[in-house]
């Protein structure tokens, strides 16, 4: 790990066990400085656990890693000073006011000009008028903004955001991502975990993990290409019967139903096209088109593969 200048986070074979359950399994990942890095995976796949290891909150059971050039085993205390971490759950005090929360964070980081920094943060948040309101009484979107402001208060070079937009309305999410891109433009590196596909597409690069193992890494476009999937989109009214028949085809490896649209994907483009042809002729009232798989298609496909691969292994 010599190239510490290029990467903000660089981990190799990171492993974490809880009891005899391997929660993170030989995870290797590199986050370049200044990029927005998406971290995706189903519930319980080990995203939060990985992030906690990267910021020195959890000690890994194996592997090695550096965050901002600091060793995650021996320099956890320094990492904590340099990194801004926004926890998955709202981690501020609901019985303190907005101002008191920020003030507390400022004190804990032993900041100079505390009052001024808190004031600036409040102004940037647009919460000056409500600074005496209890944090617990804020709506989900405002809580998230406050938590981000708290994580940014000590001006970290690296932000770790664990599902920052869960349960937040679309407008607030959009604003939030504007801000993230602005921060990235200012040179801050951002690792963000999410379950939203539109957010995944806004990242420079992504990793997808399941059962604690890394399944794919790359830009959104690379992930789609790497998957080797070919997708057909079928749409039309009342397609329940047709869906059932199509999904049963041997050439279809995966399908996703969206209202009146069905995505059917397969590894082998030729076999897929041939298998669909009879149906296409028999059902001309539907719209048939060959398209690129979406990120969601890719992730669901990866997840299905993972289930098949890991189930026997999980029993050993």
């Amino acid at each position, binding site marked *: 790990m010599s190239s510490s200048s290029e990467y903000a986070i660089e981990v190799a074979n990171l492993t974490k066990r809880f009891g005899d359950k391997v929660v993170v399994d030989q995870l290797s990942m590199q986050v370049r400085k200044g990029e927005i890095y998406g971290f995706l995976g189903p519930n319980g796949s080990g995203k939060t656990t990985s992030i*906690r290891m990267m*910021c*020195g*909150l*959890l*000690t890994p059971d194996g592997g090695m890693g550096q965050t901002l050039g600091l060793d995650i085993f021996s320099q*956890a*205390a320094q990492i*904590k*000073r340099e*990194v801004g*971490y926004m*926890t998955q*759950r*709202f*981690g*501020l*005090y*609901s*019985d*303190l006011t907005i101002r*008191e929360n920020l003030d*507390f*964070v400022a*004190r*804990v*980081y*032993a900041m100079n000009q505390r009052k001024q920094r808190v004031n600036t943060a409040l102004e940037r948040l647009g919460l000056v008028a409500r600074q005496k309101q209890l944090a617990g009484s804020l709506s989900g979107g405002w809580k998230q903004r406050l938590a981000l402001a708290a994580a940014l208060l000590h001006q970290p070079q690296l932000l770790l955001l664990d599902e920052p937009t869960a349960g937040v309305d679309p407008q607030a999410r959009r604003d939030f991502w504007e801000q993230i891109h602005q921060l990235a433009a200012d040179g801050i590196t951002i690792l963000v975990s999410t379950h939203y596909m539109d957010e995944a597409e806004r990242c420079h690069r992504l990793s997808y993990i399941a059962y604690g193992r890394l399944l794919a890494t790359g830009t959104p476009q690379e992930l789609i290409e790497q998957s080797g999937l070919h997708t057909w989109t079928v749409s039309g009214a009342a397609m329940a019967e047709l869906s059932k028949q199509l999904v049963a085809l041997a050439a279809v490896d995966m399908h996703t139903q969206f209202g009146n649209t069905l995505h059917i994907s397969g590894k082998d483009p030729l076999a897929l096209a041939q298998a669909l042809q009879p149906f296409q002729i028999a059902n001309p009232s539907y719209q048939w088109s060959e398209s690129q798989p979406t990120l969601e298609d890719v992730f669901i496909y990866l997840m299905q593969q993972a289930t098949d691969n890991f189930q026997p292994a999980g029993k050993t």
Partner: protein
Amino acid sequence: MSWRRLWAMMLKEFIQLSRDRLTFAMMVGIPIMQLLMFGYAINTDPKHLTTVLVVYDQGSLTRSLVQALQNSGYFQVVNNDANAQVATDMLAQGEAQFVLTIPANFERDLIRGNYPSLLLEADAADPAATGNAIASLQQLAESALRHDLTGALSYLAPPANSFELRIHRLYNPEGITQYNIVPGLMGVILTMTMIMMTALGITREVEQGTMENLLATPIKPLEVMIGKIAPYILIGYVQVAVILLMARILFNVPFVGSLSLLLFSVMVFIFANLTIGITISSTVRNQTQAMQMSFFFLLPSILLSGFMFPFRGMPRWAQIIGEMLPNTHFLRLVRGIMLKGNGWHEAWPHLLPLSIFIFVVMLIGIKKFRRTLD
């Protein structure tokens, strides 16, 4: 250890405490309520116990006996001429605590030297309620009769002892229950609030997810711990002040020892309890469990410490458990200082076990206190 971070933690804790009015009220309310309850309601030396007489001999000796009975303060005669059946019923129904039967020809048999018997039947279901009264009766009967058996009858009077037994009831000559209970309450109340507040306080941070946020900042676990418990030390002293003031104003409990020694002992005792609270918080998963564990510890601290029941009356195994509880040693310290005027010389044998306790539990507690989230 950074003072700035520690101060940040303490400040936050004080603000939260000031918002939580109910908890705050309870911490002052609990000592007041318990003092009033234990101070006014509990008496381990009950007097004026209802007594029924079944009299088959209406002589002057009987009259003196009854008079003496009343004068002792332990017995209150509610029926001085019941028949045997009525008396038994009253005993069974709990209307009478005692039935005293004076047999027929009591006076004649006594004079003839036939050694008649008096029968005292007691509802001794609760031994504590009857013990002192029964003990007083023997002596009372003898002295009452000696008064009447003079002149020609003097040979019948019980022989005077060949030596005199003098009893000095030291430190609490009148046997006032409050003198014992009120200082003891200090230990119980401190045990209760100190353990519960720290155990709950730290568990709450973990349960509500704020601990993860805290640990991701530069603040150290030890600073979190000290910052969280420091405000409770102050609250502990507020409680002690409330108890001491009420002990003086309401119950006139004497305070003959050194106040500074007492305050020092309180400090040691508070630390002992805080270490338990921390240990509990690092073993439990949620606030409910923290509450249960606190009570699990509180119960022996009340029952086996000598607060409720005499320590020397307990079997060996219970005494051994009792010796390991901080409250046991603290009670001896407080009672010693307040009632006996004990100084450092008498105090250190109890301060030492407390210090050992703190040391041992601290080792366990700090080891278990989660540094990271592992």
